[in-house]
């Protein structure tokens, strides 16, 4: 009989528990999202979850791995929820399924499955879909649009025509267009958003509360020790810093840091996406660099780029750099810290 190796004790923790905690931290955000923006997101969550578990099971089967055990780690579920939360809530069903396919099959399993993917699967899904279907991925529900749930489902599943009037530019889109057209010489960016009824208390109307709930969910993950403070801190600080810099430079053309932090996917990105341990940095200093890079790139892409938000590409670019950053930020080993001298 082979005797087990020490230690013979183990903390009650598992990958499954970590993933369930992430889902729990996302839950309040989903509730607020569906209450303020529309219940369509619930349909997207269910759709993405079913698709993700299906693709995950198929890939595990093809790779001859224990299906029940690996489905039970809930990692596919976290990916599915992140996809559902980053895609427009009224996306057609096939767009969501395509995204999930890219995430689970291509980005995750073709690279070796859980723990082996160099890129964040949910962000690969977002990037692939926004390049392939830019129009659909930019159709966000118009402000204050409150369709009945059945009608939202009909739109998602293609039984009702997709009317342009349903969707409108997001606040981020508005400021980007304004910046490009240089149309804001006279007025202030905030006033423009107000005039279009897009601005809420401190950011995009409605969305500000959704992102606020993500922030609370992130704080929960921090408290539970699922993530460390490095990435969210660096991400938020760097995004606040660069947006403050631009805003102070020209408050007429650039909006304030608070607006940027609570718009689009900033909070989701800071706490749930850039913190992905598999594709991100692992050393403390590396994580700070990763967060700073992702925050700055996200700002630059969302303000000066062509896409509605910059989180996905910012995170993917930092994913590319992560192994290199890790290599050059290895912490000093304990005993070698002071060369035997008193520290």
């Amino acid at each position: 009989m082979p005797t087990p190796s020490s230690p013979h004790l183990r903390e009650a923790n598992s990958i499954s528990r970590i993933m369930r905690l992430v889902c729990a931290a996302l839950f309040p955000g989903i509730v607020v999202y569906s209450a303020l923006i529309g219940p369509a997101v619930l349909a997207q969550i269910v759709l993405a979850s079913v698709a993700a578990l299906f693709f995950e099971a198929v890939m595990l089967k093809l790779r001859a791995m224990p299906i029940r055990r690996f489905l039970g780690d809930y990692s596919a579920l976290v990916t599915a929820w992140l996809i559902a939360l980053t895609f427009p809530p009224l996306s057609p069903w096939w767009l969501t399924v395509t995204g999930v396919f890219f995430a689970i099959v291509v980005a995750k399993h073709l690279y070796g499955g859980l723990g082996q993917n160099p890129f964040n699967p949910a962000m690969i899904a977002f990037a692939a879909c926004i390049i392939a279907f830019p129009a659909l991925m930019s159709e966000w529900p118009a402000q204050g649009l409150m369709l009945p749930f059945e009608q939202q489902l009909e739109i998602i599943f293609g039984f009702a025509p997709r009317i342009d009037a349903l969707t409108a530019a997001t606040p981020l889109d508005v400021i980007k267009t304004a910046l490009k057209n240089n149309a804001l010489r006279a007025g202030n960016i905030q006033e423009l958003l107000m005039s279009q009824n897009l601005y809420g208390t401190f950011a995009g109307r409605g969305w500000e509360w959704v992102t606020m709930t993500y922030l609370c969910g992130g704080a929960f993950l921090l408290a539970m020790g699922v993530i460390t403070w490095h990435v969210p801190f660096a991400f938020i600080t760097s995004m606040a810093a660069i947006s403050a810099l631009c805003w102070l430079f020209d408050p007429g053309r650039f909006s304030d840091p608070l607006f940027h932090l609570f718009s689009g996917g900033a909070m989701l990105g800071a706490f749930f996406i850039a913190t992905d341990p598999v594709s991100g940095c692992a050393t403390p200093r590396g994580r700070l660099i990763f967060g700073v890079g992702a925050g700055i790139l996200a700002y630059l892409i969302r303000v000066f780029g062509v896409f509605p938000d910059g989180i996905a590409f910012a995170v993917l670019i930092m994913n590319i750099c992560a192994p290199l950053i890790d290599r050059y930020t290895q912490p000093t080993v304990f005993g070698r810290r002071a060369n035997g001298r008193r520290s």
Partner: protein
Amino acid sequence: MMRTLFSFPGGVKPDPNKEASARAFIASAPLPERLVLPLKQSAGVAPLPCVRVGERVKKGQIIAVAEAWISVSLHAPTSGKVTDIGAHPLAHPSGLPAPAIVIEADGEDAWRERQPLDWQGLAPREVQCYLQQSGVVGLGGAVFPSHAKLGGDTPTEELIINGAECEPYITCDDRLMRERADEIISGVALLRDLTGARQCLIAVENNKPEAIRALRGAIGKHREDFVVVTLPARYPAGSLRQLIYALTGKHAPVNVLPAALGVQCFNVATVHSIWRAVAHGEPVVRRVVTVSGNVRAPKNWEAPIGMSMNALLQLSEPLDDTDGLIVGGPMMGLSLPLTNAPITKGSNCLIARSPRLFPPRPPESPCIRCTACAQACPQGLQPFELYWWSRARNFDRAAEHALAECIECGCCAYVCPAAIPLVHYFRFAKGELAAAARERQMADGARDRFEFRQFRAEREKAEKQAKTAAAKQAAVMSAAAAPSEKPAPTPPSEP
């Protein structure tokens, strides 16, 4: 007195599980009929047997004598007859037998003449030799010969007495400090005089308030200036390098001995045994062993070295579902099937294992680089990187990530959510690296021998040629001197 402590990185807080065995007084285990004494009970070289089969021995008589500096003598734990000198199974997962001396007890337990050492007038070197002949080793588990730690070139600044006992379940040092604080403090004073230490610090985790009280009381009674330092309970606070850092702020890499930093560190049980040896002439023939876990009567037993582990376990009445033993603590100890292997000087704890107390590790999941292991590592390593390279059999990269600094404390594997037996991988990688180094050494040796052989062949050839040439010369000369004689035949030329 408050002292600023330095905080080592990482560490974990497993359930201490110490109350059960810490409650009762140390009990004396009944003398078994048969004692098996493995020769190698310390780090370094095994001592050489100096008794014959059939010979009668007294308790405390040397039965194997140290023949190297990193080695200690072995003593008969009771009086009786030597019945066998040969291979016997040890407490090791391999179950491989090792040389041992077997003694059949005569039941009289009669000591050889015991004489205390008048150490005050002796040179430190003589005390060191006395300790070596008394079989004193580190009783915390590392079993390094204590005498060999003393007498370094660097003057000792701090003498640290380790009573941290940070592993769960183990309470033998706790009980010893509570019950024999006097002798421990006397031992500390002896070591202070031997090392010339300027400061003596006794480190105890804060979950042992009674031990701390007992030590402080004894220090007061002896009018000494030793300081009992209360450590926050965090595993592995009692690990040598973590403890030294916590108390002094000095960093010791694995390849540097604490003595080189002006620090000497002894376990409380070792100090106690040193005092017994010097003041009472009693060599190390017994030790206190915690028996805990899946037993009805968890307790600390003072047991003779060489007693069967199973026999000792039976004294604490193991429950029916006991399926094995953990020798040492649950974080670093060995897991063995129920065994009759003997208690040795390093056996500080026996834990009866059951599936309820120690559920088997779930199957290993993929590493998701969550870095829980890096946050728990008290050596500041990146265990997930070490795991990655060890698993990929890229041992050189593992070595680059300071695999050698791993102390195998088990914190990483304790916290790993993927249930990866990380320490197991690291032991494997260390073994492979050691094997590779040995092979390289052997290859180097073979190459050196081959090169030297070639060099020697060349040299001999050159010498031979020179000799032949000289002979030829001589022949020519003699021929020239006597032209009438027949010329000498020329020797055959070298092929």
